[in-house]
Every structure is written in structure tokens, then in C-alpha cells.
């Protein structure tokens, strides 16, 4: 923090407002500082989540007891799930990079409701801490899995209530972010920034925000009903009081399946930003990608019951939900095809952000295709609740969203902090991560297919080879994570200073702000005249540009 001044034309990192020091951060209503706050807190929770995952894998390296007892193992996977989903993947892109870049990319000075934005971070922290505290309270760590299925969640004596309330508060935080983004996109676009000139990352955030606003309250009330059931013995879902546990599953998944798209859509947006920049070409099929985000948000809200094919639903419902599940793959495939077409004949620069984006496409495709396999009813009955499912959603959520987050970090890090990381180390980190990832999760497909159930503490000896490979993979993966994060955080101190506005030759608005951005983002309020990916200087061929004229 070199210069201390109240001048607004100063980097957001150096600006001194009413408060200074730590207070200047945790009470700041600047969207960029809030984004950084989210980044730091999310990294802390991610570390905790990875630790639980690591311990789980270590326990599973051999059959029988290895390091912990079964009850502890149950809390490990419960907390691994709750933390990774509610505290890492859901806020990962919207709250960190969305907060930081959404206003900048549409040419605004901040989000529509800056104070609400800060409140949502505070709720996030309170909810996160509550989730972690629930481990240590007397009663024991929650052991229901992150799904809180009835009737076990009203029977177990562990600390389910703090975990439920934590999830409720985190949901509220997520709602506030979504609400803020919808209003910001509608009200604060710079002059000339029409909807179809918005960068695709914004389209994906906008679609995500709608799911956050509409779907989250359903899980909010469902979790509250479970709390009421536990504390006041109100009869709602508990079969002992006449309730229907399957109805709980319906309500849980009405949110939690769309939540999967809250997680993946912004990552798709990041990839849509990175691909055109690192192939120096106009994105192929801008409108298709934009509308496919909305289509995914819409269709994604209609497929929830494919999590319940073995729960005893009616045959009609099974067929309906299976068909809808197949449909949702169409807009996802449209995106993949468009990204690949953009790369075709581009002048590709294999910088770290592109590597991570390509990693996303590769791993997400595996995750997506195996998702289709599960969407088929007959196959689903065979592999339901096996580690095939675990492999599938880790390929989508970690290989997809996780790699999307890492791609975003490498893409925007220099802009956010004005420092460049070591590119060679970053690439090494990527490859270690990539190898470790596949070694960790691919064996799960195989053993799941052979009948290894998920969430089991113990297993038959014939599965040991797969578990062993998987555990070794987790070590390689963690090594990759360490290389990547140490490289990134080391850059903050020792990295080469970046002052250039546009280091990647991007065409979106964040590359025309100072590096790091000023307090109100722009030196002068921008006016927009052309679309976000119009590489006029580096045209590959004229026909493609013509196609893309908006």
C-alpha cells in the first residue's frame, strides 16, 4: 500500500476510505474488495474441504479400519460435501469473480446494491463458521451426508440443526448475490452495452443469478421444516408422523439439482471468455452460447428427480424426468461445439488460462457423457448410489467448475493484483493436477460399474486396487494444488509487476481499466460500440467475422 489518498483515481488496493487496515476491507462496500474477501474465505474453506477429502481417501486405501472409525468417516464425507458445495463451488465463481468483474465488464462503477453485497459476504462467513462449529459442538459432527435425507436426519443425535441453519444462511447469502446481479445487469449497463454486447461470462452469471433467486428459497424452507420437525416434532416429512420422506427428496432436489447449474454455468462463462482471447478469434456462435446459458438454467430446473430413480416414484415420473435429463445435454453440447469451433484455425497461445480452459472442456465432457449414461433409467438402477456417481459429479464439479475457477484465477490474477505469476510453474501445476485428477476419479467409474457403493466405510478386497490407485491419485492432485496455489500467492509478493492494461489482448471492458483497477473501475465512464469479441486486428478470415456481426 504505497500511496494513501482519498483521491478516487487510485487502485482499489491502495484506496483509503473511512476505515483503514483490516476494517477497510471487511467493511468495504467496493465490489472488488468484496470479491477478494470472498476469494480469501473461499480458499480457507477449500483447504478444509480438501483436508477432509484427503483423509477420506486415506481411510479407504485399505479395507477395514485404516485411520478412523466409521462414525468419524461419516462426518468426513458429510463435511466434505457441505463445505465443498456450499462454501467453495457455489460462491466460487459468482461471488469471487462475478463480484469483481461483473460491474467492470458491463462498464459500471459497482453493483446495484453495494451494502447488500457486503451483507451477503458477512452472511457467508457466519454460515461457514456455523458449519465448521457444528463439528466441534457436543453431540458430534453431523453424519447425514450433505443431502440431509429424512428420516435419518430427524433421528440422528448429531449436530444436524447447526448444519441445517448454516445451509439456510448460506442460501440467503447466495440469494442476495443473485438478486444484486440481476438488478445490476438490468440497470447499470454502460451506454451502448446492449444485452447482446454483453460478454458471455455476464450471460452465464445472469442465468445463474435467476436460479439463485428462484430455487434457493425452496431448499431454505425445506431445511427449516426439518429444523421444525426436529425441535417441535411438527409432522411434515417424518413417516412416523404420517409424512412422506420421498417428498423431502423432491423438495431437496428442486433446489439442489439447479444448484449444480449454479456451479457449472459461470465456469462455462469463464471458458467462453478465455477461448476467444487465447485463440485471438471471435467466439463462434455468440448468441447460441448466450441462449444456451438461459436454456440450461431453465431445463436444469426441470430434471431434479433423476436423483430419485430408485426412491419409488411413479413410472410416469421416471420417464418424464429421464427425457428431460437427456434434453439438458443439448445446450451443454452446443457450448462445447462452439468452443472447439472457436479454436479451429485460431492463433492459439497456450498460456496457463487456456490450458485450464481446455482441461475444463476435456473433463467436463467426460463428466457430461457419464451423466447421460445415468440419465437412462435401466442403467441408473444398476449404478445408483455407486462410486460411478461420485466419479461423475467430481468430473463435472471439480474437473468442470473447479478447473473453471482455476482458469479464472490464472486469467484475471494479473488484472486483480497487478502481479504476474510464473507461467512455467503454472503449466507444471496444471499437468500434475490433471494427471492426479484422472488417477483419483477415473478408477471410481470402474469400481462403481463393478458395484462399489458410495459412502461405504468398508469394501470387498477385490476393489482394493481401484481404491489404492484413487488414493495415490489424491496425493498427486494435492501436490498439483500446492504447486498452483503457492505459485499464485507467491506472485503477489515476488511476481513481476504488471501495469499494462491489456496483457492478454482481450477485447472485453476489464482490459481497458487500469491494472489493478481504480476504485470506481474506469478513468472515464465507458461507452460501448462493438461486441465483446471482435478481433478486427487479428482477423483470421473475413467470412467468420461476418457471421458473427451482431
Amino acid at each position, binding site marked *: 500500500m504505497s500511496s494513501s489518498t482519498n483521491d478516487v483515481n487510485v487502485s482499489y488496493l491502495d484506496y483509503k476510505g473511512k476505515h483503514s487496515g483490516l476494517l477497510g476491507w471487511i467493511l468495504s462496500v467496493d465490489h472488488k474488495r468484496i470479491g477478494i474477501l470472498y476469494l480469501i474465505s473461499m480458499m480457507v474453506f477449500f483447504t478444509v474441504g480438501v483436508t477432509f477429502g484427503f483423509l477420506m481417501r486415506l481411510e479407504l486405501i485399505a479395507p477395514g479400519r485404516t485411520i478412523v472409525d466409521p462414525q468419524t468417516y461419516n462426518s468426513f464425507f458429510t463435511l466434505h460435501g457441505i463445505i465443498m458445495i456450499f462454501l467453495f463451488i457455489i460462491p466460487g465463481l459468482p461471488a469471487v469473480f462475478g463480484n469483481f468483474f461483473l460491474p467492470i465488464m458491463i462498464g459500471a462503477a459497482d453493483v*446495484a446494491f453495494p451494502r447488500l453485497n457486503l451483507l451477503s459476504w458477512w452472511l457467508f462467513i457466519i454460515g461457514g463458521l456455523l458449519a465448521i462449529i457444528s463439528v466441534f459442538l457436543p453431540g458430534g459432527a453431523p453424519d447425514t451426508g450433505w443431502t440431509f435425507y429424512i428420516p435419518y436426519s430427524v433421528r440422528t443425535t448429531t449436530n444436524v440443526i447447526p448444519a441445517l441453519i448454516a445451509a439456510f444462511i448460506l442460501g440467503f447469502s447466495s440469494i442476495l448475490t*443473485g438478486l444484486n446481479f440481476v438488478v445490476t445487469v*438490468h440497470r447499470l449497463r454502460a*451506454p451502448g452495452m446492449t444485452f447482446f454486447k454483453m460478454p458471455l461470462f455476464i450471460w452465464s452469471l445472469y442465468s445463474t443469478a435467476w436460479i439463485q433467486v428462484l430455487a434457493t428459497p425452496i431448499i431454505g424452507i425445506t431445511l427449516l421444516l426439518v429444523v*421444525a420437525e426436529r425441535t*417441535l416434532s411438527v*409432522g411434515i416429512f417424518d413417516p412416523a408422523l*404420517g409424512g412422506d420422506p420421498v417428498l423431502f427428496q423432491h423438495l431437496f432436489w428442486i433446489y439442489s439439482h439447479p444448484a449444480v447449474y449454479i456451479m457449472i454455468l459461470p465456469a462455462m462463462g469463464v471458458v467462453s471468455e478465455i477461448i476467444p482471447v487465447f485463440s485471438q478469434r471471435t467466439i463462434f456462435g455468440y448468441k447460441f452460447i448466450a441462449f444456451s446459458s438461459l436454456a440450461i438454467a431453465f431445463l436444469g430446473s426441470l430434471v431434479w428427480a433423476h436423483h430419485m430413480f430408485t426412491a419409488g416414484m411413479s413410472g410416469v415420473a421416471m420417464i418424464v424426468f429421464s427425457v428431460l435429463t437427456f434434453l439438458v445435454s443439448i445446450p451443454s453440447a452446443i457450448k462445447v461445439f462452439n468452443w472447439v469451433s472457436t479454436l479451429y484455425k485460431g492463433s492459439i497461445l497456450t498460456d496457463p488460462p487456456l490450458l485450464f480452459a481446455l482441461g475444463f472442456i476435456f473433463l467436463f465432457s467426460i463428466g457430461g457423457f457419464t451423466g447421460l449414461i445415468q440419465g437412462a433409467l435401466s442403467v441408473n438402477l444398476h449404478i445408483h448410489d455407486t462410486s460411478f456417481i461420485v466419479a461423475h459429479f467430481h468430473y463435472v464439479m471439480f474437473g468442470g467448475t473447479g478447473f473453471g475457477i482455476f482458469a479464472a484465477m490464472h486469467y484475471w490474477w494479473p488484472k486483480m493484483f497487478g502481479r504476474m505469476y510464473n507461467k512455467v510453474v503454472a503449466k507444471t501445476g496444471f499437468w500434475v493436477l490433471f494427471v492426479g485428477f484422472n488417477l483419483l476419479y477415473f478408477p471410481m467409474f470402474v469400481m462403481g460399474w463393478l458395484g462399489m457403493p458410495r459412502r461405504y466405510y468398508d469394501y470387498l478386497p477385490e476393489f482394493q486396487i481401484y481404491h489404492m490407485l484413487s488414493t495415490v491419485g489424491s496425493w498427486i492432485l494435492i501436490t498439483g494444488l500446492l504447486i498452483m496455489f503457492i505459485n499464485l500467492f507467491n506472485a503477489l509478493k515476488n511476481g513481476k509487476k504488471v501495469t499494462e492494461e491489456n496483457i492478454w489482448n482481450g477485447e472485453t471492458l476489464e482490459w481497458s481499466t487500469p491494472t489493478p483497477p481504480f476504485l*470506481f473501475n474506469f478513468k472515464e465512464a465507458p461507452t460501448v460500440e462493438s461486441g465483446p469479441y471482435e478481433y478486427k486486428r487479428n482477423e483470421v478470415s473475413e467470412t467468420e467475422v461476418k457471421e458473427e456481426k451482431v
Partner: protein
Amino acid sequence: MSTTSSAPGVETHIHRDDEGSRLGMWLFLFTELLLFGGMFLVYAVYKFTHAEEFHLAAKELNTLFGALNTIILLTSSLTMVLAIVAIKRGQKYLSLFFQLMTLAMALGFLVNKYFEWMAKISHGIYPGSEQLLEKSNGEILFFGLYYVMTGLHGLHIVIGMAVIAYMTWFTWKDKINQDQYVRLESAGLYWHLVDIIWIFLFPLFYLIS
């Protein structure tokens, strides 16, 4: 993307955008709508699977209490919207009067609700009570939903009262005035939503016997 400067720089951090504020308020209302929507889904399923028992259980509820509360809430919605008309015309004291009327009726609603609940509880019908547990599954579910849904609705009434009281204070202090009344409008929107939820709760619980 080419950018040129046209506007004379970014001067203000927080600028006034009433329409944006109302849009934000509406989005918040949707979350409230879906919060209750989730419970309406539960209600719909159990009404479908336990039709006869719901029918039977609803006979325990007093339609008169429900109808009276409906009228109270509708009228309070009217006074709320009239308070906005008044403030737009600069009639501060008339607006204050309407806001206080709204608060009084909200209180009336709660008192009414209190007596209704107390009557039920004194008859031994409350969650976990022995008398309730002896009844059929459908009746247990009906009363479970009855307490949770009207209870949560009552909580919204209390929150709404706090918000309106705050607005009354602002109006008194002229922080809400003829030119700046978006906060009063937002409070009004919230209050009308609470009214709408009651419009549905009333027939679903009181009129199905």
C-alpha cells in the same frame, strides 16, 4: 471492444435509481413467494394423498376467525397503498395516519391469530401433543402445516410491522417525503405480498371442510 469517453467521469459511487430499488425489492419478494411456494407444494401433495383427512381436520378451524383476518389484512393493504398516494401528494400527516392505521390492523391480525391458536392449543391440538398424535396421519400433517404456515406468515407480519414502523419514523423525520418515497413503496410491496400469501392460506385451511 472499443471504448471512448463521453460521460464526464464517474463522480458518485452510490447513485439514486428508484426503479432499480423496486426491481431489487420484487426479486426479494419472489424469494419470499417461493419460500411459501415450497410449503404450498408440500400442502398440495398431502392434500392430494390425504384428501378425506384434510377435509375432516379443516372442520376444526373457525372460518369466522379466518374471514375476519382476511378482511383486516385486505384493509391494511388498502391503507398502505393510500399512504403512498398521500406522500406523493405531499400530504405528510395523512400518510402518517394511513401508516399508523396499517400498523394497528397488523396488530389486530396478530391478536386475532393469538386467540385462534390459543383456542386450538387449549383443546390439545398442537405439534407433538398426545391428542394430536392419536389422530390419523392426514390430520397430523394438516395441523403440522397449519402451525408452520400460519406461524411463518405471522412472523412475516411481525417483520412487516417493524419495517412499516421504521418507515413511519422516516416519514415523521421527513426522510421519506414527496420526492423520495421509494423505501415506503418497497415496504408497501412487502406488505402486499404478505397479504397475497394470506389470500391463499385462507381458502386452503379454512374453506375446505
